[in-house]
């Protein structure tokens, strides 16, 4: 199975690799939301850090990923899309958009699902730290 050019590009030149501190550091920061999804025994773990400003806009995003090339590309792409979006806008990102952008084959759809899950997890963490209660619409979309 050949990878799409976009997957190869994100794999070779991943955007926004990194974090806003160690797991202990970011746990204390209220401006940072942390999402870690997946499990090592499943072969993929995605870690997403978002930095949110006082206006509720995602100023910066960083990822780390243990997983196949498509998983790395999905999380790299997610960080690109997140930057500059408000938290509410970020929640509209769907895994199907990632599938389309990266031309992922059916066997790799779970990689895009994981990326969407990591966005939701990071936002949930940010809201929890700041005592923000999600409205019912976004709440229903989480799973």
């Amino acid at each position: 199975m050949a990878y799409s050019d976009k997957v190869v590009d994100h794999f070779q030149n991943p955007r926004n690799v990194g974090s806003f501190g160690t797991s202990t550091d970011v746990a204390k920061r209220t401006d940072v939301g942390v999402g870690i999804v997946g499990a090592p025994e499943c072969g993929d773990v995605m870690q997403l850090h978002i930095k949110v400003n006082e206006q509720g806009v995602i100023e910066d995003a960083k990822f780390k990923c243990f997983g196949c090339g498509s998983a790395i590309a999905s999380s790299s792409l997610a960080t690109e899309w997140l930057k500059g979006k408000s938290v509410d806008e970020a929640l509209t990102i769907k895994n199907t958009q990632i599938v389309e952008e990266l031309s992922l084959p059916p066997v790799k759809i779970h990689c895009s699902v994981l990326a969407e899950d990591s966005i939701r997890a990071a936002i949930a963490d940010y809201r929890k730290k700041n005592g923000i209660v999600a409205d019912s619409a976004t709440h229903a979309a989480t799973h």
Partner: protein
Amino acid sequence: MAPKLPIYFDHAATTRCDPRVVEAMLPYFSEKFGNSSSRNHKFGWESEDGVEHAREQAAALIGANPKEIIFTSGATESNNLAIKGAAEMYAKAPAGQTGRGHIISAVHEHKAVLDPCKRLQREGFDVTFLEPGTDGVITADMVAAALRPDTILVTIMWANNEIGVINEIPQIGKLCHDKEIVFHTDATQWVGKMPTDVERDHIDLLSWSSHKIYGPKGAGALFVRRRKPRIRLEAIIDGGGHERGMRSGTLNVTGIVGFGKACELCQHEMEHERERLVKFRRKLETELSKRIEVTQVNGHPEKRLPHLTNISFGFVEGESLMMGVKDIACSSGSACTSASLEPSYVLKSLGVGDELAHSSLRLSLGRWTTEEEVDYAIEQIVAAVQHLRLMSPLFDLHKEGIDISKIQWQAH
């Protein structure tokens, strides 16, 4: 000097045909095209001569008599014929009943052994699948402990295709001969690489394949012992009664001629090749373990094939690692490289954790592997692991001193 890219390090999957093999085959595509069963004209005789010469070459490689060689389409067919053929012939009860006899195999055999065994399970036979220890070796003691009064067949591979670990085949053969139990070994990864003597090693049935030993695809053989004891098999392909009635069908003369030549070449070059490849394999293992922390060579440290190594690199996933080493053609035990989403069942059977099983590469060397290729591969693997670890959240946790096996992950 930079080697020619990409580098082929997947010789356990298949090998390039040796040019001398191709040369031997060529006349049998054109002027010597006869059916080796045509007994009444020159075309048939020429083909028959080619086949019989190949039979001698194949027999010589394993210390057998040419009459004990049955040509097949490859090791999968040989395994099926050996296992199903022996089970049906030595069954203790007729088809349709249960309690037809007991068979011993192992959990980390190739699918071409496991699946015939599982079919026999559904057809009234009992099968014990032995579990190896963490070194991957199946010992004669393990087989002895599993024997039952109704055991009719033991089938244990000589060397494992994913990890290259060598089982105690001569000892298991001796045990089976003492107990008068039929013994089959899938020797696909062994024959042609290591000295084989079916007499000394007490083998009754032995499968091997042409394309793993620099011959063409679509050819292989089953050794079927003719004396002390004489092994009989129920055919699974019926027809014109070719190959002593055990495998009907017009013989693949060109393939068989190439297979024979490949056997002859292996017999002459095996010893020199083995010394060279062991040196390269050790270099790969030593350098990679030295330069990359949390690296594990899977399987027994010594009892291994000369040309194959399976290494896990912690905190990086196998498929992305293969993507990172795009100039090296190799395999991984990662789930992502297979149709199923399970990581390698072979590595799991050794107790290699799922996470390290996802992180494995199988590198297998061959006749034309050069030291330059080995050196290049080491550099590229080191660079790829470093690239991926910079991205790996698991490597961060490891550096923070957190044991990732203790974390409650949200599996999906």
